[in-house]
């Protein structure tokens, strides 16, 4: 999208770009007149979920795992650090990277609006947009993670980050063990979308993908 396509972000209400307004207008009219069904459109879009946006999050994470200076820059100012990577396209401002450690696991909620960094992550999963996920994630993050098959040691603190229009989060997962000496390309293959929103771990080396 081009620069003029974006409204400036306000603090407390939602924003849609001029283009998004037109797309929504068209979709509402076509739905009301019975030409299209919202669910059918969603299904088509979802079929292309891996083909939307540059998906550069995995590359960013892999670089942070191999380049300590980049990692430090990423944690200090993620938008700026990502902007320094020539092969990665522009991301919006106010991107914040939060690091998982053995003591703390991060998980991000909120994606009902434009705050989801789809440039980095591709489309959000369908369940992520459901309101039960959001409210439960805040009240019972450990339970939500268990539903995703993610179990963490009791002593690991779980921190839930609620995106705002100003800030979009990228979880920097822990580098899997057994990947010493791996190249960035190899490492990037292990980084899943869910690991970058904190509802999963990176793939384990040698495990079937």
């Amino acid at each position: 999208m081009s620069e003029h396509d974006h409204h400036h972000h306000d603090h407390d209400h939602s924003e849609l770009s001029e283009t998004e307004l037109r797309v929504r207008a068209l979709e509402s009219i076509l739905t009301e007149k019975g030409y299209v069904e919202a669910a059918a459109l969603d299904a088509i879009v979802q079929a292309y979920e891996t083909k939307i946006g540059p998906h550069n999050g995995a590359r960013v994470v892999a670089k942070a795992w191999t380049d300590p200076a980049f990692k430090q820059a990423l944690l200090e100012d993620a938008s700026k650090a990502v902007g320094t990577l020539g092969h990665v396209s522009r991301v919006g401002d106010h991107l914040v990277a939060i690091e998982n450690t053995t003591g703390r696991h991060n998980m991000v909620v909120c994606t009902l609006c434009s705050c989801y960094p789809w440039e980095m992550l591709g489309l959000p999963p369908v369940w992520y947009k459901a309101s039960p996920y959001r409210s439960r994630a805040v009240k019972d993050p450990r339970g939500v993670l268990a539903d995703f098959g993610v179990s963490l040691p009791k002593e690991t603190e779980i921190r839930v980050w609620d995106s705002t229009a100003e800030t979009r989060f990228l979880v920097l997962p822990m580098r899997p063990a057994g990947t010493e000496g791996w190249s960035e390309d190899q490492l990037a293959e292990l980084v899943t979308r869910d690991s970058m929103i904190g509802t999963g771990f990176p793939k384990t080396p040698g495990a079937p993908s």
Partner: protein
Amino acid sequence: MDSGAAARATSAVSSIPRDQDGPVFRAPWEAQAFAMALTLHDRGVFTWPEWAAALADQIKRAQAAGDPDTGETYYQHWLATLEHLVAAKGVTTHETLHRYRDAWDHAADRTPHGQPIELVPGDFR
């Protein structure tokens, strides 16, 4: 989805940006615009040759008006073509499109951040 439908679209409209698997999109709204064209085609609102001609016409006019034609604006032209064709085919009017666009703008304005943006009758004013 019916992947055959998308394949027929990409073969009939040769300009659609793609990789070895099929269409690629720069943003979610582009995929939504693609999906709407696919659906309207299935409903018989236009044929692919008709669509391709309207899109080419749209791109030609944009280039005459100074569009850089770098590929970044491809789906802008796609969206403009959708708007043009639904009006030309009597599905809706440009006036209605504007009215809904403004209503969505009002809906976004009154929706607190993080809530789903939904259109209600009061947004039409």
